[in-house]
């Protein structure tokens, strides 16, 4: 009986902790997790990459991102094609950002305010380069099943989702969804080789 009480208390504790995680906590804990690996010289590059991918996997809302990036084409393509696009786009973005993170050279991150309205939120940050330059970054989050997930990142006012959506619209209009998937496949392959 006592065991059950302890176990349920622990479970309750975990659930409460997960529920009370604010958008800022989500962003900060994941960046800390990645930076910890990046600054540790003993950890090999492959392990670093794996950790970056792991953080991306659990904190980004890939379904939402794919929907937004597809924009008006989201409802026009088959579910299979969407699934394929989501997987490829995820792999592509993970590679793009893994490369960016791997170039980390002691930049500092300052966290600012978080803004929550309903199930949407944004978290302000600044990346301070070793030169002392400040690069504003904003993460946009959405609440899914009680958990905050990132669905867009804005660096110096440039929204990742917006930038890819405009391009995707252009490519699909000209070459169709298959043309887009072909481009994505080629890009992902190139990252794998490198």
């Amino acid at each position, binding site marked *: 009986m006592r065991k059950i009480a302890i176990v349920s208390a622990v479970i309750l504790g975990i659930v409460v902790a997960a529920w009370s995680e604010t958008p800022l906590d989500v962003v900060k804990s994941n960046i800390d997790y990645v930076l910890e690996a990046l600054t540790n010289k003993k950890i090999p590059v492959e392990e670093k990459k794996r950790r970056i991918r792991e953080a991306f996997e659990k904190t980004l809302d890939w379904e939402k991102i794919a929907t*937004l990036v597809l*924009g*008006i084409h989201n409802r026009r393509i088959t579910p299979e094609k969407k699934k394929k696009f989501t997987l490829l786009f995820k792999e592509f973005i993970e590679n*793009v950002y893994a490369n960016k993170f791997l170039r980390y050279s002691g930049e500092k991150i300052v966290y*600012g*305010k978080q*803004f929550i*309205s*309903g199930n*949407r*939120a*944004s978290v*302000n940050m*600044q990346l301070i380069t070793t*030169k*002392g*330059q*400040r690069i*504003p970054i*904003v993460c*946009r989050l959405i609440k899914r099943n009680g958990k905050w997930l990132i669905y867009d990142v*804005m660096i*110096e*006012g*440039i*929204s990742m*989702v*917006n*930038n*890819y*959506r*405009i*391009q*995707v*619209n*252009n*490519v699909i209009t000209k070459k169709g969804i298959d043309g*887009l998937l072909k*481009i*994505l496949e080629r*890009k992902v392959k*190139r990252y794998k080789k490198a």
Partner: protein
Amino acid sequence: MRWWLALILSVFLITSFSSTYAAWNVEVPPASEGFEESFNASMPDPFEPLNKFFFNVNDKLYYWVLRPAAKGYGKVVPKPVRRSIDNFFYNLFTPVRLINELLQFKFKKLAKDFARFLANTTIGIGGLFDPAAKWFNLPRENEDLGQTLGVYGIGHIAYIDWPLLGPSSVRDTAGEIGDSFLDPIFYMVTTWTYIAIEAVYEFNKFSLNPDQYDEIKQEAFDPYISLRNIYFQYREEQVRE
């Protein structure tokens, strides 16, 4: 000498108090639902065929000439020196920024930028170093006439991808030309010397981050559209700031 120090000190005091209300720490609208489904505003591009032609020219120019040249230059001139060159010119162009901050009624920025100028010109040895950003929490400000026009409500009118110079717009090109007329140095040297100064500044700056365009291209599905949109979003953000 004593009034000089007093001036620097008082400006720092003002700015250190005001820096807690930093411009970056405000809500980015909209964090709410609805914005995702609509297409955001984008850059008007009536000259697209011509721009695409020059985009391709610039692409070749970048891979065949500019990037190799910048990397070669980077091997000869060490990075700290190139940074100091960049700092020096950036500091030299401060009057233009101050005028634009005035034209945009951004007095807090004006005070900060002036403090930056004083600190970097004195402690930073004529602007070669940037103690203002490192020690006094006064980062670089970027204000130009293109942004001033944007603040006044003037749109880009049309996108222009200039050969060699890259992405710009009708508004921002007019701004660039206007900025040189606002620059005291423009009246101190011959026009060709001024163009040479600008060219050295831009090439040196390019050498500090020569892979940026290549990265944008690798990360894009349609590099032309991506570059145009990045330019547009970046300038919009600068106008908003």
